[in-house]
């Protein structure tokens, strides 16, 4: 059995496991698993950008929170909104935002790209934080979960936790497959070329800026979809959902899980949330333990958890550079393009 076949097998087994999970688990854990799967979708969207296109965004939570607010705005207090309408509004909203933010950001690269995505997401954060109509720092409620209705008949009521669970599971699997398809297409090959060596890709005649922008939009829209699911699930959104802590956490989940694997970040989400839940029970010092865990992962598990699993399964390390922990060409040259000029001498 080839490596990719065994991987596919493992993933199918995992999906099957997730499918039967609700029949065994208590109410609380079903909710937890929904959260994990939603985070998984969010993480995959970021991995598409970071791991495959090579653009490190520190502001991805902007899309995650934006759709939550859009859902809150379109859902009236009196009753639910239809799923199609809600999805249309949310996804087009996040796609437009991604287009605008992407257009401004992809002109930069490296550390500046990181900073500008951070800055723009902070602007979103402060906009919602200041807006009294939208609840300012307290956030805003979504009183009813969207439904799929045909006339009088309710076909899918996301208000039922079970239904929502399977809706999210299908979304997770679907997103994964969709992203894999995109990556396998000619378009996908080009953006991966951009990550490896942008100059060479451009020399081959591809308008890399445009490819980066499209990749950004895809990534942002999917993150928006995850945000829609999250807001549907919790019934609540607040400015913190857009904040840099959220962006940092999801970036951490992606790295922890294993960049550039797509399934790795989902695993990362699972580990992070479960770890948090268990550690919290175990000790008040759980955040401290998390901190050490993160440091340990960076020092000893350079390929993240996915890399760990691959190693356990006997696969050879990606570039053979595992011992030094150097896995890819750094996104920014080591000199960081700057120099300490003489403390204001000029």
């Amino acid at each position, binding site marked *: 059995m080839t490596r990719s076949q065994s991987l596919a097998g493992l993933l199918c087994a995992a999906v099957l496991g997730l499918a039967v999970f609700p029949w065994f688990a208590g109410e609380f854990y079903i909710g937890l698993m929904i959260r994990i799967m939603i985070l998984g979708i969010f993480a995959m969207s970021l991995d598409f950008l970071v791991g495959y296109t090579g653009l490190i965004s520190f502001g991805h939570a902007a899309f995650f929170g934006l759709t939550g607010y859009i859902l809150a705005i379109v859902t009236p207090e009196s009753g639910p909104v239809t799923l199609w309408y809600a999805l249309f509004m949310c996804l087009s909203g996040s796609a437009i935002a991604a287009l605008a933010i992407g257009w401004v950001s992809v002109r930069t690269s490296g550390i500046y790209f990181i900073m500008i995505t951070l800055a723009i997401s*902070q602007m979103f954060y402060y906009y919602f934080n*200041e807006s009294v109509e939208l609840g300012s720092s307290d956030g805003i409620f979504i009183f009813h979960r969207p439904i799929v209705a045909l006339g009088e008949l309710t076909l899918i009521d996301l208000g039922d936790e079970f239904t929502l669970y399977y809706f999210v599971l299908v979304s997770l699997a679907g997103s994964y497959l969709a992203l894999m398809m995109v990556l396998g297409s000619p378009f996908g090959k080009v953006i991966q070329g951009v990550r490896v060596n942008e100059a060479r890709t451009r020399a081959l005649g591809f308008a890399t800026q445009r490819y980066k922008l499209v990749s950004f939009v895809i990534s942002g829209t999917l993150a928006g979809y995850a945000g829609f699911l999250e807001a549907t699930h919790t019934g609540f959104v607040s400015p913190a959902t857009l904040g840099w802590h959220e962006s*940092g956490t999801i970036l951490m989940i992606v790295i922890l899980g294993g960049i550039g694997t797509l399934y790795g970040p989902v695993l990362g989400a699972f580990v992070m949330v479960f770890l948090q839940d268990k550690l919290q029970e175990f000790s008040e010092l759980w955040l401290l333990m998390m901190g050490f865990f*993160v440091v340990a*992962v960076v020092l000893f598990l350079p390929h993240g958890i996915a890399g760990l699993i691959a190693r356990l399964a006997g696969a050879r390390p990606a570039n053979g550079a595992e011992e030094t922990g150097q896995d890819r060409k750094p996104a920014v040259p080591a000199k960081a*393009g*700057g*120099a300490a000029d003489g403390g*204001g001498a000029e």
Partner: protein
Amino acid sequence: MDIAIFLIQVLNGVQYGFMLFLVASGLTLIFGVMGIINIAHGAFYMIGAYLAFWLTGVVGNFFLAIVLGIPLMVAIGYAIERLAITHLYHRDHLYQVLLTYGLILIFNETQKLLWGTGFHSVRVPAILAGSVPLTETLVYPHYRLFISVVCLAVAAGMYAVISRTKLGMMIRAGASNREMAQALGIDIGKVFAIVFSLGAALAGFSGMIGAPVSSVYPGMGDEILIVSFVVVVIGGIGSIKGAFVGAMLIGLADTFGRVLLPELAAMVVYSLMVMVLLWRPQGLFGRPA
């Protein structure tokens, strides 16, 4: 607003700018010279503040506390560099971000263990507790003037060290071209350790002298961290002059923004950064990439 109030707001902005400058200069040095993105930098600011709070309680005198606190901060910075940061020199930026994020968690929780989760005040020392009248209703505390003066002195000192001393020369060499500097016999490892310790001490010092006006509470490092990054990016990575100009710009923009455009105040700082990045991507004083 009339001229007196305008001047007061300028004073407020400049004072905030100075404190930002101390933190941001450390950050820009670390990134410019060592190529390390250290998002735990805000934690150094917080540690400094807590040290000021704790040491003042122990020795009873705020100034003595600062004198004792500074070498402590240098030691902490050195320890962190040796234990954790050394492993990051050849790693991707992503891993630097991740590891230093883990450090933030460790620092925050350790601080809670040591000093609890409450909100603490540090009293302004008696000789500086007075104020100078500015208008018929408003006075300006002496202590805030003191902060500005001290920061100015530190800035001047930094300039002197970096441009006039041998150490400063080694730092500048390491920043321009690490490999060449090493080839010429400069112990780059030692320079890095010094730069990191210096950066940590600067941030910690800012926290210490700022403690009486900002109060001391968990998570105080997070807020200043992100603004410091904005300052560094606007000023140009690796440029102390840039950090100074950027810090003043942000300090004034933030202060006036709060009063003139309260709805959009917070967005002002970030809009500024976006504009600078679009116009001059390497920052005001950074080297073109």
